[in-house]
């Protein structure tokens, strides 16, 4: 038996309920697996929801080719250990056009390598529903999300036309051309995610824990030099600092924080004392006002 608190038990049961409703109502769901802590919890809950059967859907990872190396290694190990189906999709058209996080503004790069790539993958797989690990506490436009978030043809999100969602009732009936994004972690906070990972003893990518890493300081942010593709500006020299990451993404666009939190207990304590929100380390969200909402309207999950 688990040692979850009553609050985490409640969140867990709510998420399991959502997974089961979705599996019952949609024909071809897929789980967007982005390897981070939220995806780790998402996947664990999916396994619980259908146990002793396996989750009745594959995982999908949209790989920009700029993810941290440790993320990819972790992904491949998890999929193998759990015996799950994984689809990896990269926007090769974008790559061919030379898209990279250095020469293009974060908004353009993200749109092509993440948003458009996701749309390509969902269309190619004929998926009518995609589970995502987004939480309402992450960001202002996410605070307005439904659990079943309907997208018109072309994956567009219209925040003014969201389907009302009452009580525990989840209406998954699709209109013509519609697809849906499903957010089982809607009501979880960052602290809940870490507490759950601790109490359930879940494995996470080691980048979440403080260690000596090669970083450069740029515009007040610490960027990790994960491979030889990292472009250094004149005068920049990699230095060794004890850092960790609160969120994981493309390494040139994900800032580290200096930290001594080297294990789960320390990470939880640090998260609870944090005075800066987690997405502050995501360079793509600060590109323009309402950046996340704009990305979501275009089909970002």
């Amino acid at each position, binding site marked *: *038996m688990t040692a979850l608190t*009553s609050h985490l*038990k409640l969140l867990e049961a709510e998420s399991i309920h959502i997974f089961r409703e979705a599996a019952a109502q949609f024909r071809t769901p897929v789980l967007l697996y982005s390897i981070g802590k939220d995806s780790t919890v998402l996947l664990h809950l999916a396994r619980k929801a259908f*146990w*002793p059967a396996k989750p009745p859907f594959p995982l999908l990872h949209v790989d920009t080719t700029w993810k941290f190396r440790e993320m990819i290694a972790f992904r491949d190990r998890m999929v193998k250990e759990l015996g799950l189906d994984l689809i990896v999709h990269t926007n090769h058209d974008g790559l061919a056009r030379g898209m990279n996080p250095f020469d293009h503004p974060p908004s353009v790069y993200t749109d092509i390598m993440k948003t458009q790539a996701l749309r390509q993958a969902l269309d190619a797989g004929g998926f009518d529903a995609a589970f995502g690990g987004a939480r309402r506490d992450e*960001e202002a436009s996410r605070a307005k999300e439904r659990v079943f978030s309907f997208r018109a043809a072309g994956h567009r999100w219209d925040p003014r036309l969201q389907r009302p969602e009452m009580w525990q009732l989840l209406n998954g009936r699709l209109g013509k051309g519609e697809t849906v994004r499903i957010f089982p972690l809607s*009501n979880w906070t960052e602290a809940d995610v870490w507490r759950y990972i*601790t109490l359930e003893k879940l494995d996470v990518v080691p980048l979440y824990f403080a260690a000596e890493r090669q970083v450069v300081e740029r515009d007040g942010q610490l960027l990790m030099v994960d491979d030889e593709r990292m472009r250094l500006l004149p005068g920049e020299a990699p230095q060794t600092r004890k850092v960790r990451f609160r969120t994981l993404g493309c390494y040139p666009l994900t800032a580290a924080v200096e930290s001594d939190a080297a294990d789960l207990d320390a990470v939880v304590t640090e998260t609870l004392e944090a005075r800066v929100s987690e997405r502050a380390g995501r360079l793509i969200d600060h590109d323009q006002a309402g950046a996340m909402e704009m990305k979501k309207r275009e089909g970002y999950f």
Partner: protein
Amino acid sequence: MTLAALEETQSVAPAARTGDKSEPMLRLLTCGSVDDGKSTLIGRLLWDAAGVTDDQRAAILNASHNRAVNGERIDFSLLLDGLVAEREQGITIDIAWRYFETARRRFVIIDSPGHEQYTRNMATGASHADIAILLVDARHGVKRQTRRHAAICNLLGIKKVIVAVNKMDQIDWSEERYRAIEADFAALAGNFEFAEVTTIPVAALTGANVVARSPEMSWYDGPTLLEYLERVDPKVETEDAPFRLPVQLVLRASGDFRGYAGTVTSGAISVGDRVVDARSGLGTTLRRIATMDGDRKTASRGDAVTLVLDTDLDISRGAVLSEVKRRPVNADVIEARLVWLSEKPFDPEAGYLLRTATDLTPVTSMSVSALVDFETLASTPAHECGVNDIADCRILLGRPTSLDLFRDLPLTGNFVLVNAVDGSTVAGGVIAWVQTGAAAVGENVLVLDRARLAGLCADLGNSPEDKAEFDRRAQEVAILLRSAGVPVLIETDQ
């Protein structure tokens, strides 16, 4: 609790690692009329009770300088209004969810729009709340929209409300004015089934009586808003509620495992207890409560589990497993009170589906009998209803389904109404009365199935896409037939 005391409690205490709290989580709805200052009040609560991070603080301080709505003050509403249109127009369109915790308790704030055209979003929020804060502008008193919101809270089963009389600073902290509003609302609340109404005078902009006690209102000796919120009991069901588990899925796995997955919506069940499927009337004994963390002996309200039965009842999604003595009704006629959510008004000829706990049942016919007045809750006979209306209606189902009355068991006594053609959710309702075996499913009803529509659907096979297309065509045919006065029932084999 003073602000200083609050800050002290927020340093990480021993229980913080696991997040244990002495009080259960509270889901809190905030509603009121436009410009009563809802978003500002919640922003203030988050700001003062430390639910705001440093970068959010900096962004808000920065954005506040770009807008002059509150003069030189911080614009707390920016913490809540997340959509671009909302920031541009300075109003709340959709509900926003915010999470924060104090030493005693964890809170979910559901901030709902005040604007009348977004009442449906407010109703959505209310269905998730344990308790509601109704905001009243001290300068204007109880308004029409406040009454509407109180009525919707009441309809959706909220039992405790807080009337926050805001902008007390704008009326010179007048006790006399405050008492008049308090009395006004008490008279209104007499019409409703609220168990507890608490009135608190506040000023969201200055923070008076939100977290810190107001020196300007020494005449007020009740709790501050946060003091009340930290102590109030969220709604709890009675101890001996009957057991219900609406079946979501049948799970099969190797070793001939067959289990019914679902969440217990009320009561409790133990291994060895008798359970029945209300629809078929068949009963058996509960053999296992299976979870990935190991088998359990009991499961109770809120638990998401998988039940393994001694003998297979051959049931599927939509069935409700219950205890033997107090079962749901196997109903095909219901009378319900609903709030209409769709911009498209009720159309007796359109095709609707009834979405209950886990069942989706075709509606054979539906009629509106009355509209409910927000102020008096009196019913006026009517046959139409449109967006934001509260209406009483009668619904005939194409087949019976297991239902309870909302006042007894809310989670098996609620429903949403779904437009069968475009899938949209058009209304949310609560079941007031049910009947078995009285529906007009008989010789007068034309059943549309694959055989009857064979010509029209000759091009369709059995793929999921084709089944969906059959359903769509059948719904369109049904609309035509209903407009010609023919009762119709669609049978899909999905």
